[in-house]
């Protein structure tokens, strides 16, 4: 990455981190209802991956989706508003953390069911080259749209995702499987749930595979560029096995349960590899002064503060609108059922 790109990556990663730290505060203050899963520690993956995407590309996200959504460029204000269940939220307060989406940016949504979003990415990838779909293949055989499916190491044991690996490989879909291999599915170590690594499994489906240091945004970006180009140029789907770590609990509430499935040492070891600190160090290598970094941090802080202010100012939905958005083509009789409650 050149300096400009690296600065942008730093800004994105800082934004995700601060967004997430703010989310934790807001959850604990009961300003955000429900359950959220923080992306803290994994910022390099979403940032590097999204940096390689073009404007028409599509992504599907997970329960741990904030990083992908912010990384892809969604407005933090509307994202906070969504998490805070406000009408100006991305989903008008209908989705919350686990279903946040910004379809205008190709974000087909977080998902509460592990693995379940991946086939959407496959379908969208296909539509980009299918006759009649919005995106015809361009003349040089490069497709307009590449899809990225994000998922964790735990997801690779879920049937629908495995089926999607196969579908993508068999149909040579222009898509990238981005496995955020943080080593755990909630409390369960990846190795307890599978005899092979994610890469080995993906190879067995005929996907092109690369292992990536998911704590290094430049490594992710480089791999992502290769992967997206591979897919876009019609050479078929790619699987990126991004080794990373979450610095915090599975979700905001985990600390209350007192679970002991990772050692203090292990957590500290990975925290020592903080992907944001790493980029800051590199930026210093690119000639940025501490003051420059402080200014960047400050900008992010202001951005997030403004976002929270925006969200707080947004209204709650009206109870009478609870059935809104249910059907795109309402029929007389579906509509009247509401009265029957």
């Amino acid at each position, binding site marked *: 990455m050149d300096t400009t790109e690296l600065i942008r990556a730093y800004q994105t990663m800082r934004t995700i981190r601060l967004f997430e730290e703010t989310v934790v505060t807001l959850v604990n203050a009961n300003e955000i209802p429900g359950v959220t899963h923080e992306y803290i520690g994994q910022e390099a993956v979403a940032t590097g991956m999204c940096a390689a995407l073009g404007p028409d590309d599509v992504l599907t996200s997970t329960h741990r989706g904030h990083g992908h959504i912010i990384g892809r460029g969604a407005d933090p204000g509307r994202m906070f508003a969504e998490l805070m269940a406000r009408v100006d939220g991305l989903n008008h307060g*209908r989705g919350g953390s686990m279903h946040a989406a910004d379809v205008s940016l190709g974000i087909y949504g977080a998902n509460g069911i592990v693995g379940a979003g991946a086939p959407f990415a496959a379908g969208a990838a296909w539509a980009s080259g299918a006759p009649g*779909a919005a995106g015809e293949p361009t003349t040089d055989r490069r497709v307009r749209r590449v899809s990225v499916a994000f998922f964790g190491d735990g997801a690779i044991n879920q049937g629908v995702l495995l*089926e999607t690996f196969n*579908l993508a490989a068999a149909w040579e879909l222009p898509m990238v499987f981005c496995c955020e291999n943080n080593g755990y599915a909630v409390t369960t170590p990846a190795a307890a749930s599978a005899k092979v690594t994610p890469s080995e499994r993906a190879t067995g489906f005929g996907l092109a595979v690369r292992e990536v240091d998911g704590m290094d945004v430049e490594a992710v970006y480089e791999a992502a560029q290769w992967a997206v180009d591979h897919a876009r140029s019609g050479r078929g789907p790619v699987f990126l096995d991004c080794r990373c770590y979450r610095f915090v609990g599975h979700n905001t509430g985990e600390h209350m349960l007192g679970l002991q499935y990772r050692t203090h040492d292990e957590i500290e070891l990975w925290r020592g590899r903080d992907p944001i600190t790493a980029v800051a160090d590199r930026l210093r290598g690119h000639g940025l002064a501490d003051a420059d970094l402080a200014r960047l941090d400050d900008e992010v802080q202001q951005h997030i503060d403004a976002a929270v202010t925006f969200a707080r100012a947004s209204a709650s939905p009206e109870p009478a609108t609870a059935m809104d958005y249910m059907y795109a083509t309402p*029929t*007389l009789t579906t509509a009247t059922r509401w009265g029957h409650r």
Partner: protein
Amino acid sequence: MTVMRYQKALATAVRDEMAADPSVCYLGEDVVHSLRGVSSGLAAAHPGRVKDTPISEAAFTGFATGAAMAGMRPIVEYQIPTLLYVAFDQIVNQAQKIRLMTGGQTRVPVTYLFPGSGARLGLAGQHSDHPYTLLAHMGVKTLVPATPQDAYSLVRSAIRDDDPVAVFLPANCLPRKGDVDVAVTVPIGPAAIRREGTDVTVVAIGHLVHEALAVADDLADQVDVEVIDARAAHPFDWHTLTRSVTRTGRLVVLDDTNRTCGWAAEVAATAAEELFHHLRAPVRRVARADVPMPFAPVLERAVVPDREAITAAILETAKA
């Protein structure tokens, strides 16, 4: 207007929509060779828009969702009705919910086709279900056309609808012949009164509409039966039901799903709530027994709604 078999009308609807709209595509197992007779000739006519899928119902259902969000209007064919269960999460928890969950940011115009649904003597425990109730309960628009005209027109309406729509095409209807006018539009929603009558309202769906009509004719000199074809398990046309029951005061509901919490329960329950003061006799349901389909045809006949049970229910209701 031509006379057409139901199965042919269904295939023609798909063919006409594929021809009319380049964003319509067709996915399923063995659809290129048209194992189920819905997609004959489609692959040749529209190369690239007809895809044989691997045996991966969950994934290709989700695939259709994503393609739909990206602008296509996929039709997904399931080779067996119970494959709904394999794809269940992708239909009821994903495709069906995405629009509301995203606050209306997207539409999911997918049509799920279940050709040959329901029992067909001898298909046993896993090939005889008729699971339209499950989808109705989950709020999915769920159609069960009874006639060739409806197979044609409702399937076209389903494909043009901007929401997920499931269409069950009962095995017992596929060979039926009837008039089909391709210019006729049948919207999703209104029921059809297939026979007017004054004594008892019979609400049926799918092939049971024809059973109801046959019994009504048989009983014509004893009871004047009104037969309503619901057409859709969901949404249900309460207006037409209300008008009919207000006149007859008597209601029998026929349902080819398990009796417990089946579709007939909804109709009967709503009648008990909303039409109570019009009812002059207890509501009656004729539904499947609550049992996996036993293989032996003699047992199968004992657990599905048949004319004998329908006749008994109508007579009992008329006389109560």
